[in-house]
């Protein structure tokens, strides 16, 4: 696997917008499928040990994906993604909102704009996420990733830093 693949993550606190850019060592149609087909999405969307469980997904304009992030203890945090625009293998846009298990959205949510492009057999994905408030981003972390996932990573990082001294 190539190690020089781009990854950058920036946050504009003033406009409450997150920018994520990443390159993948795969062709465009495969990366597009990975973002738009539920059987592939569920394999990587949730950072382990969390699991992504898509209950329904209808990838078309006006369609939606209703899915849960499932904790190792089996706790489910539901979300709805509603597709507002699709240009195959180039761009899609969606509205994301947390929801309860009966598919009632918790507004406000966030606006997602995902761009895909290929160059020299590397596919670049650029994601722009506009949030109603940065407090919502905080909620996103608390809801989906409580249970010590990120804490564990932070502890591990500290531990490794200590051990390598």
């Amino acid at each position: 696997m190539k190690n020089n693949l781009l990854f950058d993550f920036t946050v504009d606190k003033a406009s409450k917008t997150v920018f994520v850019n990443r390159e993948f060592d795969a062709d465009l149609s495969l990366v597009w499928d990975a973002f738009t087909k539920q059987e592939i999405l569920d394999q990587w969307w949730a950072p382990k040990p969390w699991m992504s469980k898509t209950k329904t997904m209808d990838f078309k304009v006006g369609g939606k994906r209703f899915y849960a992030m499932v904790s190792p203890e089996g706790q489910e945090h539901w979300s709805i993604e509603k597709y507002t625009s699709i240009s195959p293998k180039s761009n899609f846009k969606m509205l994301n909102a947390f929801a309860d298990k009966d598919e009632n959205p918790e507004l406000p949510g966030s606006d997602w704009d995902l761009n895909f492009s290929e160059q020299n057999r590397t596919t670049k994905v650029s994601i722009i996420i506009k949030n109603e408030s940065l407090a919502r981003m905080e909620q996103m972390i608390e809801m989906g990733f409580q249970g010590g996932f990120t804490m564990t990573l932070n502890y591990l990082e500290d531990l490794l830093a200590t051990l390598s001294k």
Partner: protein
Amino acid sequence: MRRDIFQAIADPTRRAIITLIALQAMTPNAIADNFNTTRQSVSKHLRILTECELVKQEQQGREIYYSLEINKMKEIDRWLNQFRKIWETRFNQLDQVLSTIKKQKK
């Protein structure tokens, strides 16, 4: 009411105040001299920043000096870093999924 720390730094004047007092502790009058706005308006911004614990006050003689709570600012960066880590992990998982699919196709 618990103030939203990110709301606090979403305001351009408050960000400018943070930048100013990051260099040295200042009195409200000295801070206000840097803005085309009323002393009252600067006081209001300072009150919000204080409520968010982004700045601290210190009495020196007759004057009150405001300075930046560096640790609180670091807290914001740590928090954003968690968000970054989620994406990093997610994409590393996707790398593996993509490489598995490519192998299956061959």
